[in-house]
C-alpha cells in the first residue's frame, strides 16, 4: 500500500513536470514559429520533450514514450543543426506537440489515446528526408524510433566464462551485444586537430534497477550521441551464487565525440537512479570545437560531474548571449531557469497563508485593545510591520505568472484554425504579470470561452476580411496588466464587432429583454453575457451553445471580478476581465445585522454616519434616502436585503449608515446595526463547497471559529432594484 501510494505520488509529480515541460516546449515552438530558431530555444524544447520521454518510460506509458521518443529524435537533429528549423519543420513539430500534449493527457487518464499516426509519419518524414546523408561523424542516426526492448542478454565467448555461466558482457573488443561500433572507428574519426573526445564513466547505483532506472537506457542514449563503449568494469560482479539479477554491478566507460556538448551527454543521465556515479571528462585539448557555432566554451582540463545529474551543469553549458529576437518573456525565462526552485504542496502554502492571516488578525486585535503608549512599549508597530511583510511574502509565494493561463491559447487557436478555416495571429503581452494561483486556475475556462468566441463570432472568414480591406489572417491580442489591486486581462480581436441589431433582435426573441426596451450600445453588448443567449445561426462545436459568455461572466463574478465589453462595428471587440489580485485576504469592517456578523470590504467604505433624527427619510413606502451635506443618497437596509427582518425594524437613529461606493450606482448608504471591528480577514470561497451566491464575496472564519459572510457591495446594490421586505436577493439559480 505505501509503495503504490509513493509511486502514485511520484507519478503525480511526473505529470506536473509534464505540464511544465509542455508549457516550455510550446513556448519554445511558438518562438521558433515566430522565427527565433536560436540554439537555446531549440535546446529548451528538446529538454522538455526529453524529460517527458524519460518519465514516461519510467512509468510505463508506452504510447507516450514511443511518440515522445520519435519527437525527440527530430528535435535532436534540429538541435544538432542536421535538420534546418525551417517553418515547415517547425509546423510539423507544432502538430507533434499537440499530439504529445494529447498523449500526456491520455497517460493521465483524462482523455482517450490520440491518433498519432499522421504526426508520427510527418516526424519520420522529416527525419528521413532532412536527416539522411548529412550525418556527422560516428553518430548513428536513430532510424527506428522506439526502443523499449529490455536488456538483451547475448551469449558471450567462452573464455570469459569465469563464473561458470554465460556472462552478460565480458569484453568489448570481442563482441558487440549492443550493436555499437568498435572503438577504433570513432577514435580515428576524431582528427588530431579536433578537441579530445569526452570520456564518460557511468557507475549506476546497485539499486538502480529496483528504482526503475534501467542503466542500459542511459548507456544507449549516450551511444545514440555517437558514444562508443571502451571499457566495461566487471570487477564488482560477484560470483554467481551471490549475484542478484535485480542489481547493477557494471561500470561502463564510453568515449563520446568531442563535438557533442557536455550538457547533451549529461542529459542522458537525467533519469538514472540517485547515487549513480556519472563522470564526464575530457583529456586536455586546445583546439576549438568543431561545431558550426562555438557553443560550448568547454574547460580544457578534465571536468567531473557530480554523482547525480545536476541541473546547473546543463544550464551553464548553454549560456551564449541571448538571441537578438528576444521577446519580453525570454529574459524572464532565462532567469527562471537559473533560479533554484522547490516544489511545495499548495495545501501547505494555503495553511501558511491562513496562519499568517490569523496572525494579522491577532495583530489588529492587539492594536485595538492597547492604548498607543502601550503599543509603543511592546513594539507593536514593529511587530505589525513584520507581520505584514511575512504576509506579503507568503502571498507572493502563491503568485504565478499569468503565462500559465495563456499557454493553452496558441494550441486552441491552431485547433480552431483547423475547424473554422480562420487563420489567426496571436499577440501576447504582459504574460509575466503575476497573479494569485487561484485566479490563474479559475480564469482558464473564461479565457477559453472568450478566445473561442472571438474566433467564432468576431473574426470573419478570410474572404470577408479581404473584402473588408483587412488582412486575411485575423489578429487576436491577449494582454494582462496590473492596475492597483486589480488585474486586467484583455482579449481583443480585429473582427467585425458586435452586431447590435442582431443581438437586440435575438435578445427579444429569447425573451431576455422586452421588445420596447431602450438600451444603450453598452447594454446591448452586455446582453451577450446573458444566460441562454446565443446568436450563432449554426450551433458549432466551438461556441454557440449559448453558455459561453454566460459562463465567462458568472466565473469571473465568482472570482470577485467583472467583464467589460467594448465593441466597434467593423473594427473589433475587446473583452476585459477585471480580476482581484488575490483571493486570499481582505481588509474589512465587521458589521452586525440582527445579531449576525458580516464583513464589509473596506475598499468600498467612504464614511460612517450616525443619523440624526430626520436625516433619513422615506422616499417611497419601501425606499429611503439620507441627506448628507446637501446631497440625497439612497439608503438600503441590509437586513431587508438579506431577509433578516424578523425582529422589529430598527429606527435609523439606532442604526449606523455606512456610505459605500459602488461602481454601478455610485454612493449608497447601507444601514447596519453596529460596527464590531475593523480587521483583515482571510477569504474562503463559498463555491468551494457550495456555489457563488450573488451579493456575497465569500465567507471568513472569525477568531472564535464562527463564520461571517463577506458582502459584495457592487453585486448587492446593483442587483437590488426595488427592494421589498420579502424579495431578498436572487441567487444564481433564479
Amino acid at each position: 500500500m505505501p509503495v503504490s501510494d509513493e509511486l502514485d505520488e511520484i507519478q503525480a509529480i511526473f505529470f506536473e513536470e509534464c505540464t511544465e515541460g509542455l508549457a516550455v516546449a510550446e513556448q519554445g515552438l511558438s518562438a521558433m514559429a515566430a522565427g527565433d530558431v536560436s540554439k537555446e530555444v531549440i535546446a529548451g524544447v528538446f529538454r522538455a520533450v526529453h524529460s517527458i520521454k524519460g518519465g514516461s518510460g519510467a512509468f510505463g506509458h508506452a504510447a507516450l514514450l514511443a511518440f515522445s521518443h520519435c519527437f525527440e529524435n527530430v528535435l535532436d537533429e534540429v538541435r544538432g543543426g542536421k535538420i534546418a528549423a525551417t517553418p515547415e519543420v517547425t509546423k510539423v513539430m507544432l502538430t507533434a506537440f499537440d499530439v504529445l500534449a494529447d498523449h500526456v493527457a491520455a497517460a493521465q487518464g483524462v482523455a482517450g489515446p490520440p491518433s498519432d499516426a499522421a504526426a508520427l509519419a510527418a516526424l519520420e518524414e522529416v527525419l528521413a528526408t532532412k536527416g539522411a546523408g548529412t550525418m556527422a561523424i560516428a553518430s548513428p542516426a536513430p532510424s527506428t524510433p522506439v526502443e523499449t526492448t529490455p536488456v538483451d542478454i547475448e551469449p558471450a565467448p567462452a573464455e570469459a566464462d569465469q563464473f561458470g555461466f554465460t556472462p552478460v558482457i565480458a569484453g568489448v573488443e570481442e563482441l558487440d551485444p549492443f550493436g555499437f561500433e568498435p572503438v577504433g572507428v570513432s577514435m580515428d574519426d576524431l582528427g588530431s586537430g579536433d578537441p579530445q573526445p569526452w570520456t564518460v564513466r557511468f557507475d549506476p547505483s546497485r539499486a538502480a534497477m529496483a528504482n526503475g532506472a534501467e542503466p542500459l537506457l542511459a548507456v544507449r542514449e549516450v551511444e545514440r550521441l555517437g558514444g562508443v563503449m571502451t571499457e566495461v568494469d566487471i570487477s564488482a560482479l560477484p560470483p554467481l551464487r551471490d549475484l542478484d539479477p535485480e542489481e547493477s554491478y557494471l561500470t561502463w566507460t564510453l568515449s563520446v565525440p568531442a563535438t557533442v556538448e557536455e550538457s547533451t551527454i549529461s542529459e542522458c543521465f537525467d533519469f538514472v537512479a540517485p547515487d549513480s556515479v556519472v563522470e564526464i571528462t575530457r583529456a586536455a585539448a586546445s583546439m576549438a570545437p568543431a561545431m558550426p557555432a562555438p557553443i560550448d566554451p568547454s574547460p580544457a582540463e578534465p571536468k567531473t560531474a557530480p554523482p547525480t545529474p545536476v541541473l546547473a551543469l546543463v544550464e551553464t553549458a548553454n549560456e551564449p548571449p541571448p538571441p537578438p529576437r528576444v521577446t519580453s518573456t525570454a529574459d524572464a525565462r532565462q532567469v527562471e531557469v537559473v533560479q533554484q526552485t522547490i516544489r511545495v504542496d499548495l495545501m501547505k502554502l494555503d495553511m501558511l497563508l491562513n496562519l499568517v492571516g490569523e496572525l494579522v488578525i491577532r495583530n489588529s486585535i492587539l492594536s485595538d485593545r492597547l492604548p498607543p503608549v502601550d503599543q509603543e512599549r511592546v513594539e507593536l508597530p514593529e511587530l505589525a510591520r513584520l507581520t505584514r511583510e511575512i504576509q506579503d511574502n507568503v502571498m507572493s509565494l502563491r503568485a504565478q505568472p499569468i503565462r500559465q493561463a495563456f499557454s493553452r491559447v496558441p494550441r486552441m487557436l491552431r485547433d480552431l484554425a483547423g475547424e473554422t478555416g480562420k487563420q489567426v495571429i496571436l499577440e501576447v503581452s504582459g504574460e509575466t504579470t503575476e497573479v494569485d494561483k487561484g485566479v490563474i486556475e479559475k480564469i482558464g475556462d473564461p479565457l477559453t470561452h472568450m478566445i473561442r468566441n472571438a474566433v467564432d463570432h468576431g473574426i470573419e472568414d478570410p474572404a470577408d476580411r479581404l473584402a473588408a480591406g483587412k488582412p486575411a489572417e485575423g489578429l487576436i491580442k491577449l494582454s494582462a496588466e496590473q492596475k492597483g489591486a486589480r488585474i486586467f486581462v484583455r482579449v481583443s480581436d480585429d473582427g467585425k464587432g458586435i452586431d447590435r441589431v442582431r443581438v437586440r433582435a435575438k435578445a427579444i426573441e429569447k425573451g431576455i429583454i422586452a421588445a420596447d426596451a431602450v438600451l444603450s450600445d453598452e447594454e446591448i453588448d452586455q446582453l451577450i453575457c446573458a444566460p441562454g443567449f446565443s446568436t450563432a445561426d449554426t450551433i458549432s462545436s466551438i461556441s454557440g451553445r449559448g453558455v459561453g459568455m454566460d459562463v465567462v461572466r458568472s466565473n469571473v463574478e465568482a472570482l470577485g471580478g467583472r467583464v467589460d465589453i467594448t465593441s466597434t462595428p467593423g473594427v473589433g471587440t475587446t473583452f476585459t476581465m477585471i480580476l482581484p489580485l488575490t483571493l486570499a485576504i481582505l481588509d474589512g469592517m465587521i458589521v452586525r445585522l440582527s445579531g449576525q456578523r458580516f464583513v464589509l470590504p473596506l475598499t468600498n467604505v467612504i464614511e460612517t454616519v450616525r443619523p440624526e433624527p430626520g436625516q433619513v427619510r422615506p422616499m417611497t413606502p419601501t425606499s429611503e434616502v439620507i441627506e448628507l451635506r446637501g446631497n440625497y443618497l439612497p439608503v438600503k437596509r441590509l437586513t431587508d436585503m438579506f431577509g433578516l427582518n424578523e425582529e422589529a425594524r430598527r429606527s435609523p437613529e439606532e442604526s449606523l449608515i455606512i456610505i459605500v461606493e459602488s461602481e454601478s450606482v455610485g454612493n449608497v448608504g447601507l444601514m447596519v446595526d453596529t460596527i464590531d471591528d475593523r480587521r483583515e480577514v482571510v477569504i474562503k470561497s463559498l463555491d468551494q463547497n457550495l456555489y457563488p451566491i450573488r451579493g456575497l464575496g465569500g465567507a471568513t472564519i472569525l477568531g472564535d471559529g464562527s463564520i461571517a459572510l463577506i458582502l459584495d457591495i457592487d453585486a448587492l446594490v446593483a442587483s437590488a432594484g426595488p427592494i421589498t421586505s420579502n424579495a431578498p436577493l436572487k441567487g444564481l439559480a433564479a
Partner: protein
Amino acid sequence: MSTLNTPGERKIVTFSLGDQMFGIDMKALIEIREWEPPTPLPSVPAYIKGVTNLRGTVVPVIGLAERLGWTPSVLHARSCILVATIGGKQAGFLVDEVADIILINEDQIQPAPEVETCEQSVIAGLVQVAPRTQEGAAAETSIMVLLLDLESLGLMRHLEMAA
C-alpha cells in the same frame, strides 16, 4: 481500510429522519459531528441551513429531511451532521440520529420502484436490514433502509435543474 471490502460488499451508514431509516455509502462520509447552528445564508433554498466551519473550510449544512421533501427535522440532543463528499465538494447533512454502520451485499439492494416524483429520484435503492438489538444479536423483524444517491443530492446539480 474501508476500501478493503470484498467485491460486492458495501459499508453503509444508517440514520433516521422521522420514522424513516436511510443509508449512505460509508466511502462518502467524512465525519459525524454534533449539531451546532450554522451561519445562515441569504437567498438560498430553505433546505440549505447555512454554512459551518469544518476545520477551516466553509461547508454548507443541508436539512436533509426538507431536501428530501419530508417535514423538517426537529432539533434534539441526538441531532447530528453527517459530513460527506459529493463530487469533490463537501456538505453537511442534518439528520435525526445516526443508527449503525452495516455491511451489505450489492445483490441485497433492490432498485427503487418507479414512483411519481417531481424530481429525479434521490433514492438509489432499498435494502432490508435486521436491526441490531442491544445485545448485538439480529432482531426478528427487518426494516427497510432507503439508500440515498448522494450524487443527486449535490447542490450544483439541484440548482441546474431549478434553473
